[in-house]
């Protein structure tokens, strides 16, 4: 078995036509073009260096431990076949041979692999990393992030200081085990809404507060929002939502886009919608808070009933989905039924009465203003 090739001795660029007689452990190279007979050369297979790249129509090898290196180039199809079928890693790379056997199929598989990888990154890896990041961010940073968002939002909010103070009194009277100090505000608005920001800020809109009939319902609402804060739902959702956008801007090399994304999305923080599982987690947490404070667990389903009734008239931004709301009334009621007898929390009742008085006064003031 002899194959045709071109040989270079490494000392000069003169090309020699040669015949190669490959063996398992060595190649014999015999000169076919010399006018003067030249002696055969032996290449030990262990010292042969392949070119480490696949080109279909040519194989190239260099040889020798010390400079100058000898070289062989061959376009002999039989030799190329011999190399491609060789099991010796020193001569051919199996993966490349397989990949180049059916080029079209390989391209399809590789493109598919790249797309699958990108999708996996986009929908699974990146959000998981983002949520992990949100979970492990130090409290100090969470608080300053919340403050930043609140500062951005505050120009759009009309805070009622008197009501806020009374509501804060109510919150302070609650027994809460919280990583973050809770700072609650009442904002004048017709929207039936309340939202929590990272690091302890809660904003309740006045119209929602007016609809609430007792301390149990109020504590249910607050407990629910505190859960969002405690479990870092805001940060997790934001990281998850923005991680993909951030990932895309990194892929396209637009790192400046990352800061822009955060800035542009500040307005969304007041209308964040959480996944069903996060909402449920918050509901359960809220019920737990009611129980720990000797309040009636029925406050929670009652709160949802109020929202449901109201949303028939006007769909609020806060929990607009009826079936979900119905579902939540159901499971919170079931949990509420399990509550055993408890001693009434008079302190909270007192605080609630004070707050309600303030609310009543406010409504009357508004009425007289309108009358005048």
């Amino acid at each position, binding site marked *: 078995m002899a194959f045709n090739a071109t040989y270079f001795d490494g000392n*000069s660029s003169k090309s020699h036509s040669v015949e190669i007689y490959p063996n398992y452990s060595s190649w014999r190279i015999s000169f076919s073009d010399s006018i003067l007979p030249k002696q055969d050369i032996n290449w030990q297979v262990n010292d042969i260096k392949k070119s480490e790249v696949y080109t279909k129509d040519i194989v190239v090898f260099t040889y020798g431990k010390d400079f100058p290196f000898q070289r062989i180039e061959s376009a002999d199809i039989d030799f190329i076949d011999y190399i491609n079928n060789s099991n010796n890693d020193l001569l051919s790379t199996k993966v490349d041979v397989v990949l180049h056997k059916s080029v079209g199929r390989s391209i399809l598989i*590789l493109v598919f692999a790249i797309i699958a990888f990108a999708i996996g990154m986009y929908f699974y890896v990146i959000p998981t990393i983002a949520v992990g990041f949100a979970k492990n961010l130090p409290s100090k940073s969470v608080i300053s992030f919340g403050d930043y968002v609140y500062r951005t939002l505050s120009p759009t909010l009309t805070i009622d200081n008197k009501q806020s103070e009374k509501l804060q009194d109510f919150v302070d009277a609650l027994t809460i085990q919280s990583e973050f100090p809770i700072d609650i505000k009442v904002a004048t608005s017709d929207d039936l809404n309340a939202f929590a920001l990272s690091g302890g800020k809660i904003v309740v809109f006045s119209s929602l507060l007016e609809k609430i009939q007792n301390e149990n319902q109020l504590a249910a609402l607050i407990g629910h929002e505190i859960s969002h804060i405690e479990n870092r739902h805001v940060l997790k959702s934001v990281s998850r939502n923005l991680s993909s956008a951030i990932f895309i801007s990194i892929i396209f090399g637009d790192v400046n886009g990352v800061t822009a994304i955060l800035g542009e999305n500040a307005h969304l923080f007041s209308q964040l919608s959480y996944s069903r599982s996060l909402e449920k987690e918050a509901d359960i947490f809220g019920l737990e808070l009611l129980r720990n404070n000797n309040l009636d667990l029925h406050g929670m389903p009652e709160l949802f009933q109020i929202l449901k009734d109201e949303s028939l008239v006007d769909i609020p931004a806060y929990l607009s989905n009826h079936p979900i709301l119905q579902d939540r009334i159901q499971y919170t009621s079931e949990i509420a039924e399990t509550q055993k007898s408890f001693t009434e929390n008079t302190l909270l009742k007192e605080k609630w009465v004070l707050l309600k008085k303030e609310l009543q006064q406010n409504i009357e003031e508004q009425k007289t203003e309108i009358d005048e």
Partner: protein
Amino acid sequence: MEVISGLKTEKKKFSYFGKGSEFAVIYLKNIVLTVLTIGLYYPWAKVELLKYHYQSTALDQNRFTFHGTGKEVFRGFIKLYAVIVVLYALVLYALQTQNTVVLGFAMATFYLFFILLIPFAIHGAARYRASRSSWKGIYFKYLGDRMELFWKCVTGALLTIVTLGLYGSWFSVDIRKYVISHLRFGNLSFDFKGKGETLFWINLKFVFLFYLTLGIYSFWYFKELWSFYADNTEITQDGKKVNFRFTMQPGDIFELMIVNFFLIAFTFGLATPWVAVRTFKFIFRFLEIEEGLDTDSIQQVKYDNYDDAAGDDFLDILDIDLV
């Protein structure tokens, strides 16, 4: 031309034998490996793509070979990142002090250092690429002096700034001449004979005609520019000089660029490997060496075993390519 029988001194043509689909397999395989390793595989990917282009390029029926390894390129990146990390640490430290003077000093150091690294990177890249390139078993070699190139770059850059960019053409020619004239291929040497003023006029014409012709002049500009680079590059063999020739016409450049543009635009970049192959095919089809070079009698000289790829990597990061 002296006709001596047995000498291979006819006109030498380059040709590129790469195939789009074949290169696509290699290109995509390397993307997969690079993303799976969060970028760690990049040096090996870079080397394999280079090897492919080299091995697909023939002159006088023989292929070029790139002998670099992923390991060398990887080590280069490690060195480079060490420097970059130190520079970033300096800037981060300065940011923390909240002192504008310290911050200004740190930023200045950062940028200055980055810019001053460029001549060393050019030196390193030229030396690494040359020592890792061969044809017909003969190796290239770069004999330039690091500091000489550095001072050339510093004075050239300063003059360019002082003249508001006018000196740029002379600067660019000066550096090209330095690098090419210190390049060896076995016992062949090279030189670049282009003049700064020629490049200056080529660029000046471009500035004026580009707007007048709504950009159409670009094709003539590239023809002039590439011909300027190729036609002024000279090979010396045993005292005898021959030139490169670049014979592409503006129409060819138009065809190359327009088709490449549409290929990329309509396939969302998927055609990148085909475009790369097409471009190499085009360029090498029009590149030749005048008659007179005897490609069978080039003698090997001492080997420059330079395995430091950091300079090459730095130019890679800055997206500058030699040649």
